[in-house]
C-alpha cells in the first residue's frame, strides 16, 4: 500500500486554538495507507519543511499530505519541499483546515474538529490516487510582436527593444503614429501632439532591434507562450515571425456621429475634426466670422439638407464605414462655438463613459479661446468627469476663462437647428437658444474595426463593446488569460494618454517576464487523452478555449484527439465533456475527485 505521511499544522493558535489538532492527528493515523503523522507548530517554517523532507527520506513516504492554511498561498512551498526530498511535487496534497475550517467555526470546536478530520480523510483519499506528473520545459523565443503602431504600441516596442529584445511592430496603416497624429495639442499641458509622436516614430524607425511592418495585416497566430508563430502580410508578401510574447496595442477610434445633431462634417463636426481645424486656424490667424448670415453662407449651409438636422439618437447603427464628408476647413474664426458632450455615449446602446471627452472638450475650448479670445464657447454637458488633481484644476481653469458650462439631461437633449442650438438648461430651468457658427460633438472612443477578428486570431476575449478583456479587472489588468499575450492602451478601454503610456510600460514589463527566461515550464496539471478510448468526436476541441486539444488522423479513417500540454490550462472542461472517458484531467481525475466525494460522506477504516 502507498505510504502516506500527514503533517498537521497548528499555525500557532490559528488552527490549534479552535480545532483539536491532537484528535485530528490521532484520527489520521487510523486512515488506510497513513504510515506517518506529525504535528508542527508551523509546518511552513524552515523547521517544518525540513521535517517533511526528513520524513520523506527516512519513512520512505510516497505521498505527502499537509493539513494547514490554504493551497492558494502555500502549495508551491510544500511542493518544493517534496521536490527537494526527491518526491515528485504532484504527489503532494493540501488540506485546508484553517481558512475553511478553524477560522470559520471558531465557536464550535467539536464540529470544527470533526470537519477537520473529514477533510484530512478526503485529502488522504485523493493522495492515495495521485500520480507523478511531468513539467515540460520549452525554450523561449526572446522577441516580441507588438500589434499597433500608435503611441502605445511604439512605446511598448521601444521599451522592449531597449531591454535588448528584438521587436516586430505591425501597423495596419501606411504610417506609424496612430490617432495622436491627428490631434492638435494634448491636455492638460496644451503641448503639441505631433512633435511628440514624430519623435517617437523616428526613434522606432531608427532602432536597430525594431522591425516595422506597415500597411500590414495579421493572417495567422499559432503556438503558445514563448513560442508563437505569426504570419503577417505586408509589402505584397507574407512573413512568418517567431516571437515569444505578443502585445495588443491596437487602440480605439472615435464614434462617427452619423445622424446625430445634424452632423455634417462642416458646421457640425466632431472633436477630432476640430483638432485639425484648430491647426488650420493657428496657422492662418484669419479674420473673424460675422455673427450673421455671411458666415453661415460661407460655411456652406446650403449643403445641409433639412432632414439632416436633429437631436440625440444613437449614431452608427451599422458597421458600415462612415460617409466621407468634407471637413469644415474655413480659416475664418467663429464667433460662437457650441460643444455637445456624451454624443452617442452613456446611452442604452453604448452605456459606458468614454472618459477622455470631458477633458478633450475643455482642452479644445481653451485652445479656441487662446487663438481667438473673443469667441464664446459653450459646453453642453450631462456630467463633467475631470477626476484627479490635474484635471479638476483644468476644469476650474476653463470656467475661469469664461467657458460656459450648461447642463442638459438625456431626457431633454439639445436640438441643433439651422440658426441655433436649443437646450434646456437643467440648472436654470429654462430653454436657451444659442446662435452658433460651429457645433462640435464629443463622441466616445469605440472599439477598433477588426478588434473582434484579431481577438479570434489570438484566442483572447473582448467585452460586450468590443474592447479587449483582460484576465482580471483588478489583479491582472494587462494580461490576457492566454499566457504570453498582453494588452495596453485604448484597445482595452478609453483612457488618458498618460494612463495608456503607463500601460505600455507595464505590458512591456509583463512581456519581458516571459522573454527574459530561457525556457517556459508547463504545468503538469493538464489533460491527457487515452487514444485507445478516443473516437475522435471533437467535443473536447469544441469546449476548449485555448486550442489545446486537436484532432489528428493517426491512421486512415481513424481520428483521435491529442492535447498540447503547453496550451492546456488544466481546467478539465474537456474531461467533463468527453463521452467515452478517453480524456483525463490530470491531478483532478474522475477517480481522484470521486474518491474525495466518497471520503466526504463515508469512512473506510483499516
Amino acid at each position, binding site marked *: 500500500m502507498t505510504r502516506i505521511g500527514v503533517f498537521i499544522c497548528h499555525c500557532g493558535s490559528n488552527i490549534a486554538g479552535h480545532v483539536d489538532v491532537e484528535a485530528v492527528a490521532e484520527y489520521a493515523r487510523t486512515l488506510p495507507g497513513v504510515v506517518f503523522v506529525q504535528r508542527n507548530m508551523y509546518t511552513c517554517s524552515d523547521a517544518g519543511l525540513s521535517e517533511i523532507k526528513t520524513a520523506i527520506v527516512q519513512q520512505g513516504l510516497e505521498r505527502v499530505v499537509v493539513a494547514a492554511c490554504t493551497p492558494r498561498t502555500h502549495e508551491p512551498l510544500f511542493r518544493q519541499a517534496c521536490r527537494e526530498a526527491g518526491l515528485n511535487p504532484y504527489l503532494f496534497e493540501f488540506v485546508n483546515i484553517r481558512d475553511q475550517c478553524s477560522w470559520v467555526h471558531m465557536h464550535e470546536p467539536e*464540529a470544527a474538529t470533526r470537519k477537520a478530520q473529514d477533510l484530512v480523510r478526503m485529502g488522504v483519499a485523493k493522495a492515495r490516487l495521485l500520480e507523478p506528473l511531468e513539467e515540460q520545459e520549452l525554450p523561449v523565443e526572446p522577441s516580441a510582436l507588438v500589434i499597433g503602431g500608435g503611441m502605445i504600441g511604439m512605446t511598448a516596442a521601444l521599451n522592449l527593444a531597449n531591454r535588448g529584445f528584438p521587436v516586430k511592430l505591425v501597423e495596419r496603416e501606411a504610417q506609424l503614429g496612430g490617432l495622436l497624429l491627428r490631434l492638435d495639442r494634448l491636455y492638460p499641458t496644451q503641448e503639441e501632439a505631433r512633435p511628440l509622436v514624430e519623435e517617437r516614430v523616428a526613434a522606432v524607425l531608427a532602432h536597430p532591434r525594431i522591425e516595422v511592418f506597415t500597411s500590414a495585416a495579421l493572417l495567422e497566430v499559432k503556438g503558445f507562450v514563448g513560442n508563437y508563430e505569426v504570419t503577417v502580410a505586408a509589402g505584397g508578401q507574407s512573413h512568418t515571425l517567431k516571437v515569444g510574447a505578443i502585445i495588443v496595442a491596437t487602440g480605439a477610434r472615435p464614434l462617427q456621429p452619423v445622424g446625430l445633431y445634424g452632423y455634417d462634417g462642416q458646421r457640425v463636426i466632431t472633436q477630432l475634426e476640430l483638432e485639425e481645424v484648430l491647426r488650420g486656424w493657428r496657422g492662418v490667424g484669419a479674420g473673424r466670422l460675422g455673427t450673421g448670415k455671411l458666415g453661415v453662407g460661407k460655411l456652406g449651409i446650403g449643403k445641409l439638407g433639412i432632414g439632416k438636422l436633429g437631436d440625440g439618437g444613437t449614431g452608427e447603427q451599422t458597421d458600415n464605414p462612415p460617409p466621407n464628408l468634407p471637413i469644415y476647413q474655413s480659416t475664418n474664426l467663429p464667433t460662437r462655438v457650441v460643444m455637445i458632450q456624451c454624443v452617442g455615449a452613456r446611452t442604452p446602446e453604448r452605456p459606458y463613459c468614454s472618459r477622455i471627452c470631458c477633458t478633450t472638450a475643455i482642452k479644445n475650448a481653451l485652445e479656441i479661446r487662446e487663438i481667438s479670445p473673443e469667441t464664446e464657447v459653450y459646453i453642453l454637458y450631462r456630467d463633467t468627469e475631470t477626476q484627479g488633481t490635474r484635471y479638476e484644476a483644468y476644469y476650474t481653469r476653463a470656467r475661469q476663462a469664461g467657458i460656459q458650462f450648461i447642463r442638459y439631461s438625456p431626457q431633454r437633449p439639445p436640438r441643433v437647428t439651422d440658426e441655433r442650438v436649443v437646450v434646456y438648461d437643467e440648472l436654470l430651468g429654462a430653454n436657451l437658444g444659442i446662435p452658433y457658427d460651429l457645433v462640435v460633438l464629443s463622441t466616445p472612443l469605440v472599439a477598433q474595426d477588426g478588434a473582434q477578428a484579431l481577438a479570434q486570431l489570438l484566442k483572447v476575449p473582448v467585452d460586450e463593446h468590443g474592447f479587449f478583456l483582460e484576465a482580471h479587472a483588478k489583479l491582472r489588468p494587462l494580461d490576457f488569460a492566454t499566457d504570453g499575450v498582453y494588452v495596453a492602451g485604448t484597445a482595452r478601454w478609453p483612457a488618458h494618454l498618460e494612463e495608456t503610456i503607463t500601460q505600455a510600460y507595464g505590458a512591456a514589463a509583463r512581456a519581458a517576464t516571459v522573454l527574459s527566461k530561457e525556457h517556459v515550464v508547463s504545468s503538469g496539471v493538464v489533460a491527457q487523452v487515452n487514444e485507445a478510448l478516443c473516437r475522435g468526436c471533437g467535443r473536447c476541441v469544441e469546449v476548449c478555449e485555448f486550442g489545446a486539444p486537436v484532432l489528428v488522423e493517426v491512421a486512415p479513417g481513424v481520428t483521435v484527439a491529442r492535447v498540447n500540454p503547453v496550451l492546456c490550462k488544466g481546467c478539465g472542461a474537456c474531461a467533463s465533456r468527453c463521452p467515452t472517458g478517453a480524456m483525463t484531467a490530470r491531478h483532478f481525475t474522475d477517480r481522484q475527485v470521486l474518491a474525495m466525494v466518497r471520503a466526504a460522506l463515508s469512512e473506510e477504516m483499516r
Partner: protein
Amino acid sequence: MTVDFQPRIVVFACNWCSYAGADLAGVSRLQYPATTRVIRVMCSGRVTPGFILEAFRLGADGVLVTGCHPGDCHYISGNQNAVITVDRTTQLLRLLGLEPGRLRLEWVSAAEGARFAHVMSEFTEHIRKMGPTPLKPETCNLKPVTR
C-alpha cells in the same frame, strides 16, 4: 426531521473564484455552519453529473456547485459548462425522486467572502428545512465500485 438534523453538504469550488472566496470568508473570520465539505476543482466546468450523483448516492443531503460569476471565468467559459451540467443533473435528480432544490449552482467571486459564508449558511438552512435525503435508507449499505 429532527431539530438537531445536521445536513451533510458537498461543495465543489473552483480554484480561482469560489475557493478563494471561501478562504476570504476565513480570513475575515465570518462564521457559518460546519455542515459543508469543500472539494477543490480547477474550474466549475470540471464538475460532472457523475460527481454530483455519487454524492447523492452516498447520502449527501445537498450539493453545491460554486464558480466564478458569468464573464469572470478564469478559463473564459468554463462556468457556462457548469450551468449545463447542473441543469442536466437537476433533471436526473427528478427522475431519481430527489427534490431538485438539493442541488444548486452559486456564483461566488474571490472578493466575496461574505457571500460565500452567506451561501453556506443559507443553503444549510434550506436543506435543514427539506430534511434528510430520501435516498439515504436505500443506499447507505451499498458499497461504491472502484475500477
